[in-house]
């Protein structure tokens, strides 16, 4: 067991924890923040995507030891009131179906728009490598494009 100190959505946390525990399970299990989802455990599906010091990262494959001193943003902290432009459009454009994978998609999309405010389809394809089994990809693409328009308007 090791003491790990890091911030989640601006709040400092100190966890006495097995340092090999993936960040995903530290968030879900030790901090009771269940918005970040478990999908595959091997970094393939992206359901567990969070922002690590401002960059999208798959939290299932990162030992919590690696986040000492880091700033983590999860879906719960993407905005103060659930009103990030992507969150608003995701609802308005009826993007999610079952919704399980969408926290991860939203975090990846937020990171994409921060880096590339007006992404091309190829850039969206390259950035959003999350798996959605309900088939929401066309709506994810449409919502990202519309967010880009509104941001750049």
């Amino acid at each position, binding site marked *: 067991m090791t003491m790990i100190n890091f911030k989640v959505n601006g709040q400092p946390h100190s966890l006495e924890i097995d340092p090999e525990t993936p960040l995903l399970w530290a968030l879900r299990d030790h901090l009771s*923040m269940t918005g970040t989802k478990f999908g595959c455990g091997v970094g393939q599906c992206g359901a567990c995507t969070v922002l690590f010091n401002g960059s999208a990262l798959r939290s299932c494959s990162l030992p919590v030891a690696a986040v000492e001193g880091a700033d983590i943003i999860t879906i719960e902290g993407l905005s103060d009131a659930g009103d990030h432009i992507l969150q608003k459009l995701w609802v308005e454009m009826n993007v999610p*179906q079952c919704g399980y994978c*969408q926290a991860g998609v939203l975090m990846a999309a937020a990171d994409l728009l921060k880096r590339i405010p007006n992404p091309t389809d190829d850039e*969206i394809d390259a950035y959003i490598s999350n798996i959605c*089994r309900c088939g929401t990809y066309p709506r994810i693409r449409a919502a990202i494009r519309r967010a880009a328009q509104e941001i750049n308007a």
Partner: protein
Amino acid sequence: MKHSTRPSLKMSRRQFLVSSAAVAGALSLRISSTNAAEASASGDLSPWLMIKPDDTVIVTVPSPEIGNGVSTQHAMNIAEELECAWEFIQVEFADFTREYQQPGSYAVGNQPFFGGHSTDHERMPFAMQLGASARERLKLAAAQHWGVDVAEVSARNSVLSHKPSGRSLRFGEVAAAAASVELAAEPALKPRSEWRLLGKAQPHKLYLPKVVNGTAEYGIDIQLPGMVYAALLQSPVHGGQLKSHQPEAVLGMPGVRAVVVLDPSATPGSPVTAQPTFGFDGSEIRSGVAVIADHYWQARKALAALPVEWDNGLGAFWSSYEKLQQRQQQLLERGQGARLTNRGNVDGVTGTATVAATYHTPFCEHAAMEPLNGTALYTDQGLELWHPAQDIQQAFWVAVDESGLQPEQVKYNQTLVGGGFGRRTTSDDARAVVAIARQYPGVPVKVIWSREETSRQGAYRTAIATGYSAQLGEDGMPLALQGEACYSGMQVNIGYTDMVYAATDTIPNVQLAVSSLPTHIVTGAYRAPCYNSHAFTIESFIDECAAAGNIDPLEYRLKLLANWDPAWSDCLRVAAEKANWGQPLPRGQGRGIAISNWPHPGTQQAGSTVCAVAHVEVSQAGALKVHRLDFTFDCGRIANKDAVLAQLQGGILFGLNMALNDGLSLVDGAIAESNFDRLPMLKMADIPEINIYFEALSDHDRFAIIGEAPVGPIGPAIANAIYQATGKRIRSTPFRKADLSWS
């Protein structure tokens, strides 16, 4: 899978009984069929609808929400008649214990708790009558309050108005009073011409605000005081047994509390006659072992360190999927299958050309994004379960059966469901959760399958081999069609023995047979079970017949369907026209077409008819790119256009993934693919241009289910396009395993 015949939407309102109660200042209403009402005349009211003093409208939904928007549609059906403001609506899942205590409380129609069916004709009139009854009770309460004639009171947007005096009241202000008014008769429903929501409004799914801020609660998200976690491992070869394990090797590891065994012979059994929707077959415990620990990662780590030995049993005989395919092929060659469909006499027909082909569709894993899971608390008092089931009634009775407790002692809590696709219908997962919690009583145990365990312990799509032969006449059209489908797993004949080409009279001689090659692999429902294979095989074979007859595949189908429900031909024509059918393409590119219907392919004006045209490109090296899918459909009418569009998009992409990617292999009896590194799934970059057209909708008087049908025509449309592009017939899925190279 059971499927009912379709009752008329014009059900008499005398078939319903609405009763009311005041609950904490709220109007609470229940509705039941009159024939179910007597049995539940006593006891507390099981609410379907509650209107609270603050105007909140609580709609009880007797179906799980698996992402198809069923709860939102149910609320929309009620709101159409209730005239409440949409923003006041909240939904809650029905409590099955109430149904047990008062049979008929929520069980309406033949599949009362199944996820996909609450927007169709079975549920819709109940929901609308409920809304109308509540509205009239509120109006009468307001009229009595004002001392005016109820005919002068109107309801709109959660407000009751008396125009002559200019007075108004909110719904919530008269809710309690409305609970005690007596209606002389249940009101008639609005004519369709006066609908303001259905067919017009397109609200987003009600739970989405919680999805996007991370507060939506799926099964895996349940948090309870003192909760511990379990990780499990079951026999990698289905039907195998745990031979030995050494708990002492891991009991000293950090956080580990216990190691428990999953023993199929230890199921206590229900103390009363159980009524699981689909029976208990397929829900049995799979032999295995689970580690319980303070935290999930501790349980995972200990499980990985636990020495385990298995007795693989007979399943190890199936050393590979290829061996299974060979045995299926041998059965087809014997031709001894049960002949379920017979028209004319296929044996007496000799045409000018014979076409014959065999197709293989493999086991497929649902790969819902939420891994299997559940949380249970077993105490002296009873069992409480929190779970993402696709069928609440099934999960409840499985929990009773595995706990051995009286039904009154079992409390079931339905959560949101992170993808179903049929996987969560039998509740084998709920049973394992209860079996583990039963052995660690007193604290809530959350059991989470790893992705690998979820994949290895699937209830897969049935593997089928289907052989067809046809005799073509001089005009190139079939004089006789003969087929046999050999099932390894759950057998569903929809789209095969009742296929449209057997139902029309354009092929005079048809014989369709079924046979079975049982294996140890557990199979089950997979988005439109078996139809998703049958659509691929028959639509590929019809295409082969068209090619042999030297007739355009579109024209061929139009000829075969000339005497049939014209919506089918409309679907074909519109899709083809939109896809520029017939316009030349460069070498290596092609278009293909396919059509199917779920779940009533052999009945006119029933179910959902769906048609796809695929435009593909295949490089000479064999790399496949699906450029575009043009899609038409007829489900009669639609209640929420955007919700239908979402289901079509989802079904099309599920069908695309099924055709391109999904397909499992066997190694010594065990499923070889356990995570997405070996079982690739479609991603954003793989998505073609998808065009969905509403022009073929017939406006026939039905709201047929729409989420399942679209998976059918995608694969065969692509395979037929590959043939046009390369001259190669691809007779098995997934296409990623096929050699598509050409020269």
